[in-house]
């Protein structure tokens, strides 16, 4: 027997986000300018944005930790130039989006151990019986994953001047 007293409470799902941006812009002359921007955000989330249809409205019954800590780190260098025959844009950007997330999974283990019948965690599963998934299991399961995707992109673009009857665009990117 187990209860979820460690996690049970009202107004279970909360979200707290902080962040900011700093930008520096310079104009060398009428033809060249650049902007360097860095922004940061940290989001701390606890709880579930779900609803169990078998329980009262806006209610779940969770037996494990649920959280999400998400950050966004972003840098952007943008340069504009007037080459006379065309406008030049160079843009170099980098972002990193690290995330550390915990998801409650007890519903899964209940079903996994005893088919569609919930509430029994001591069972010999007809499929996996005799294997590592038999006997009693504590009805608590959650998984945690950490990710940190990053992306760095560079783009150089030349565009014809406004006006006239013929326009062109050329660019390189990585």
């Amino acid at each position, binding site marked *: 027997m187990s209860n979820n007293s460690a996690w049970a409470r009202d107004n279970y799902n909360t979200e707290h986000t902080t962040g900011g941006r700093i930008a520096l812009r310079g104009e060398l002359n009428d033809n060249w300018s650049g902007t360097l921007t860095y922004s940061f955000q940290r989001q701390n989330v606890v*709880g579930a944005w779900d609803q169990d249809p078998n329980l009262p409205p806006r209610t779940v019954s969770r037996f494990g930790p649920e959280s999400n800590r998400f950050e966004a780190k972003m840098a952007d260098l943008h340069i504009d130039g007037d080459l006379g025959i065309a406008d030049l844009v160079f843009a170099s950007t980098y972002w990193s989006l690290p995330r550390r997330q915990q998801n409650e999974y007890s519903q899964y283990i209940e079903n996994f151990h005893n088919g569609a019948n919930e509430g029994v965690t001591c069972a010999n599963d007809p499929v996996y019986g005799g294997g590592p998934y038999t006997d009693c299991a504590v009805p608590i399961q959650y998984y945690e994953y950490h990710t940190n995707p990053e992306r760095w992109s560079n783009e150089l673009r030349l565009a014809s001047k406004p006006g006239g009857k013929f326009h062109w665009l050329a660019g390189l990117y990585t």
Partner: protein
Amino acid sequence: MSFISAGPGTQFLVMRGVADGSNPTYSNFSATGFFVDDMSTSWAGTQPDLHLYDIERIEVLNGPQGTTYGAGAMAGAVRCVTNKPDLNNFSAGVDFSGGSIANGGENFTYEGFFNAPLIPGKLGLRVSAFIDSRGGFINNLLTTRV
């Protein structure tokens, strides 16, 4: 354009109903590019849950935008253009909002920005920051399992 929230941290913007179909479990992986200035922030068909403040404008570009915005903008692109430093004028501002959720917690948002010309006409600095706090509204019921 459709917006789908999968809870804080993950969201989907889908233009013209076009998804990339890369995940057979979910058909809602987006083929819409989401940009902050020059930066493509889309990742694995989702867009990060960014608190966007001090924004000059939001551009919504329908239809394929591959020529300018790359392969991730097959259905279209959404571009948020931030306010850039003003090289000639000081400015500052703050915003505050608050609210209470019926049978739930409380929400508060504090936002502010500051702009300063460091070398008038040549070099400018702009800083913005925010705090956003959302109270809960889902109850986790005390339960016993046997």
